[in-house]
């Protein structure tokens, strides 16, 4: 099955990112070309400082590139204003962080409800959807718990529920297992696989651990701000069975 003709979900052409750091410019990305098709599950690997997080921030519409173009669903993201980007992050993108980034004073339920609130849901609708998402990550019973009453693995599952509750097209995770022990890491990666299979969501995971990357059919390796190796540079879709 080949879908080379189809427009890839994510198209990056010569993306550069320069951080002006106290006079000295840091070239974090030096021309990244990357295509990712709808429904792929991709690992982005590379040494620390190679530009993985910078690329994820741009793909997640949390930062703007300095040069090059980034098309999401064929739309040039650089033409969108801040509020359109916020809507994009809310409806089409889900973000999972290394340090979970849950609101510390809020319950698991409230954390998962947040993206729904920003989408205009009423409290009753939001609660219903959030409980479903918590159920999917196996934490419905902990809905009333605060982050400090949960293990790291549980917190990350809440974060995943929060990332998928709005049914995004793309799930982006920057070193999601970086703060977890091996057992929890495997559980989290299995959860990503389930989300990918059950919801058909495109998953992009940054990691520098090969055994974590092995959960992903496609691996992209970065070094010094460029992609140095890619299993599937065309971004054509391959199913799990083919991989």
């Amino acid at each position: 099955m080949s879908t080379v003709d189809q427009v890839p979900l994510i198209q990056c052409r010569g993306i550069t990112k320069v951080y002006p750091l106290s006079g000295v410019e840091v070239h974090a990305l030096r021309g990244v070309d990357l295509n990712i098709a709808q429904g792929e599950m991709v690992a982005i690997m590379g040494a620390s400082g190679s530009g993985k997080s910078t690329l994820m921030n741009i793909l997640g519409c949390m930062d703007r590139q300095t040069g090059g173009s980034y098309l999401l669903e064929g739309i040039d993201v650089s033409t969108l204003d801040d509020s359109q980007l916020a809507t994009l992050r809310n409806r089409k993108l889900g973000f999972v962080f290394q340090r979970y980034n849950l609101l510390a004073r809020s319950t698991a339920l409230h954390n998962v409800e947040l993206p729904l609130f920003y989408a205009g849901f009423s409290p009753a609708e939001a609660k219903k959807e959030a409980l479903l998402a918590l159920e999917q990550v196996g934490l419905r019973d902990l809905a009333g718990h605060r982050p400090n009453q949960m293990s790291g693995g549980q917190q990350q599952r809440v974060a995943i529920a929060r990332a998928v509750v709005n049914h995004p097209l793309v799930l982006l995770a920057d070193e999601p297992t970086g703060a977890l022990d091996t057992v929890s890491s495997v559980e989290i990666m299995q959860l990503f696989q389930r989300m990918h299979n059950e919801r058909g969501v495109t998953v992009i995971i940054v990691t520098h651990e090969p055994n974590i990357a092995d959960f992903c059919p496609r691996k992209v390796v970065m070094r010094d701000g460029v992609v140095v190796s890619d299993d599937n540079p065309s971004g054509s879709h391959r199913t799990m069975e083919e991989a």
Partner: protein
Amino acid sequence: MTIRPTVLAGFAIQALQANKMRSFLTMLGVIIGVGAVIVMMAIGQGTQNQVLSRINQLGANRLTVMAGAQGGPPGRTTSAGNPLTLSDVEDISQLSFVKAVAPTVRGSVVATQGNHTWNTGITGTTPEMADISSLVLQSGRFFNQADLKAASPVAVLGQTAYENLFSYGVDPVGSQIRLQGISFRVIGLLRPVGATAGSDQDDVIYIPVTTAQIRLLGTSNQLVNAITVEVQDQAYMDRVQADITSLLRKKHRLTEAQEDDFRIMNNAQIQEQVESVTGTLTLFLAAVAGISLVVGGIGIMNIMLVSVTERTREIGVRMAIGASKRDILAQFLLEAVLMSLGGSLIGILLGMVATEVFAMVTTWPVAISLSSVLLAVGTASIIGIFFGFYPARHAANLNPAQALSYE
């Protein structure tokens, strides 16, 4: 579809509740500021109301003529100063638009009754004064023309004089009191009027002017301290004042170059002056109190800036999951406005309580006006928006990626 306002308000309330002590201390500045505005304006307004109502009670259509020149500039010749006499009273009463005229002779006396002694002022006048000054009797009667003709030793007591000369609850009418050792019969007791800005209007004893001149003060039986004139209508005040001026100048044989050797107080003018002075006083008090409100606002801004810095990661998270700049701005602005509005509501209650307590302790007149409450609430919300805007905009302008990487 964007976030619902009620949900956003919930976020703001949650954030304030998460730091209850800090939110309260921040609100304290506004509480004190609003409370001070309420109390100060109540005092200013109360004073103005009371002074004006007292002037109204005295009659806005009243003129008072007093002997003695206006303090003129040095070098100008002033006459030796002709006194006012009972003949002036008679002449003024003949002028058109004059309704009633009464003379006043004043002196201080030692009054005794039984073993009570009281230093007070006596006012010698004619029966017309009761009407002109709207004196209301609590018991007994005011002296009449017969008392005046006979220079009868009769006295009408004000409340304060009465309270200091008689035991509580005793009806003084019919009793004898001594003024400077001379025996007087009490024929009436006046209703209390209260104090006007510190001076007790009830500490007085009225006696017939003839009695005062002949029996008590031993002054010439013609001289008076002041003449009170009631004009038929407030519209004729200036006209009558001008007529009295030319009458007295002619009688006193003053030349063009000479100043008046008498003064005329016009209650309508006094009322205007009092209104403008107490109005200014009220504004000044409100402004002083308003400064503390501004200080309270700066306190809110300070805490909001700290809060934005502390919650940078939270802001990053909210943006990552879809909060727009507008959502972030609205939430932080709402937090600031809620604090200033909450503070102003508590401040209003506290200010009202403090005003009542102040009025009870000092017996100073107070009046809480709706306008002062609205002013306080309005100022507080403007302050909340004004001082909350900068920190809120600061939060909204954060770049999500940078906010998330903030340590």
